[in-house]
C-alpha cells in the first residue's frame, strides 16, 4: 500500500513538473524537449498494468493542455507508444524513435508545415532529451523508494 501511494504521488508530481519544464525549456529550432513523452515511456517500463496506461493518458492530456494541441492528439500517441514500449521492451529503440514518430504524427494530424525538418531534428533532440528524462526519473524513482 505504501509503495502504491509513493508511486502515485511520484507520477502526479513528475507529470506536473514535467509539464512545466516542457513548457518553459527553450526550443531547439522549431521543436522542444519531449519531457512528458519521456515520462510516459519511463512509467510504461516501470509501473504495473493499469498504472502505466493511466500515466500515459494523463501525460498525453497534459501535453495537449500545455502545447495547445487538438483534443486526443497526444493522448492517442502516448497511449500507443506506451503500449508498444510495454510489450516490446526495447528502451533504447524507443528513446531514439519515439520523438521523431511523435513529430511525424503531429505533422499528419495537427500541423503539416515543416514536418519533415521537425522529424529530422527530432532524432538528436529526442534521443538526448528522452535519455536525460528517463535517467533522471530512474534516479528519482529509486531515491523516492517508489520501486519497492
Amino acid at each position, binding site marked *: 500500500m505504501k509503495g*502504491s501511494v509513493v508511486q*502515485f504521488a511520484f507520477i502526479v508530481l513528475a507529470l*506536473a513538473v514535467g509539464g512545466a519544464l516542457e513548457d518553459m525549456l527553450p526550443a531547439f529550432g522549431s521543436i522542444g524537449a519531449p519531457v512528458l513523452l519521456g515520462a510516459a515511456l519511463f512509467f510504461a517500463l516501470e509501473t504495473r498494468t493499469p498504472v502505466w496506461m493511466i500515466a500515459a493518458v494523463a501525460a498525453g492530456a497534459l501535453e495537449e493542455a500545455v*502545447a495547445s*494541441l487538438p483534443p486526443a492528439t497526444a493522448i492517442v500517441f502516448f497511449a500507443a507508444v506506451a503500449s508498444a514500449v510495454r510489450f516490446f521492451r526495447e528502451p533504447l529503440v524507443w528513446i531514439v524513435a519515439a520523438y521523431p514518430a511523435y513529430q511525424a504524427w503531429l505533422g499528419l494530424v495537427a*500541423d503539416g508545415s515543416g514536418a519533415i525538418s521537425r522529424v529530422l531534428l527530432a532524432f538528436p533532440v529526442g534521443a538526448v532529451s528522452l535519455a536525460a528524462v528517463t535517467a533522471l526519473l530512474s534516479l528519482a524513482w529509486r531515491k523516492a523508494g517508489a520501486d519497492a
Partner: protein
Amino acid sequence: MKARTTGTYALIALGAVLAAVVCFSRAAGVEAVYPFERGWRAFSNRVLARVSGAWRGSKASAENVSLRREVAALALAREDLGRLEAENARLRRALDYAEASPGTWIAAEVLSRGGAAAGRRTLRVGKGSLAGVAEGAIVSVPEGLVGRVASVTPHTSDVLLVSDSSLKVACEVALPGGEVLRGTLAGGTDERLALRHILSKAEVPPRSPVFTSGLGGVFPKGIAVGTLLEVREDQDSPRREGEVLPAVDFSTLRDVFIRRER
C-alpha cells in the same frame, strides 16, 4: 493482504479519475502545471535577477536612475493624457459620436511559449480569469501589438500571436497625400509577417509604419504592428501582398499588457 489490494485499487481509481479530469478539461492541465512555472519565474526574478544584478553593479544603479527619470516623465505624460481623454470624450459627445470604450491594461508576465509540440504560435502569461482577463482581449506592449487572448484559465491565459496564421488583423499604412493602403495581416514567422489583400496600387515609401485600422472591429485603430518592407504584385490576383517586419520581438517578451474592458 486484502486491505493492501483494496488500497492499491483505490489509488489506481483515483489516478484514473485524475487522468480523466485532465483529459476533459484543458484548463485543469494548465492549472496543474502553473504552480511550477510560477515558482520558477518567481525564483528567476527574485534570486537569479539579484545575482546577475550583483554582477552588473554600477550599471544597474545607473539604469535605476534613468528608469526613475522615465517614470517621472511618464507620470507627467499620463496627466496630459487624462486631460486629453476628458476633452476627447466631451468633443465626441458634442458631435454625437459613439463613446470610445474605456478600458484598463493588466500587466502579465510571460510564463512560456507553448511547449515541445506547440501547434500554434502562442504565449502563456501568468494572469487569467481571476485577474479579469477575458477570451478575445487584446494583448500589446509599448512597441506594438502582440496578439489576442485565445483561452483563459483561472491563473493563466494563452495569447495567440499576430504571427499565427489563424489570427487576422485589419491593418493600414498611411501614404503621402492622405491616401491609405489597407490590408489584412495573416500570420507569418517571428521575423516576417504577411500583409495580404492589398487593393491599392499606390507606390509605398520604403519602411512605412503599419498600424491596425480598426476596421475588423476586433482591434482598435492605431496600434503599431510593424514596418512594411516591400509590396509584391500577385500575377494571379488583382491584389498585392506585403512583407512586414514586426514591431515586437516575440522571442524576448517578458511582460505583456492585456486590455480589460471596463
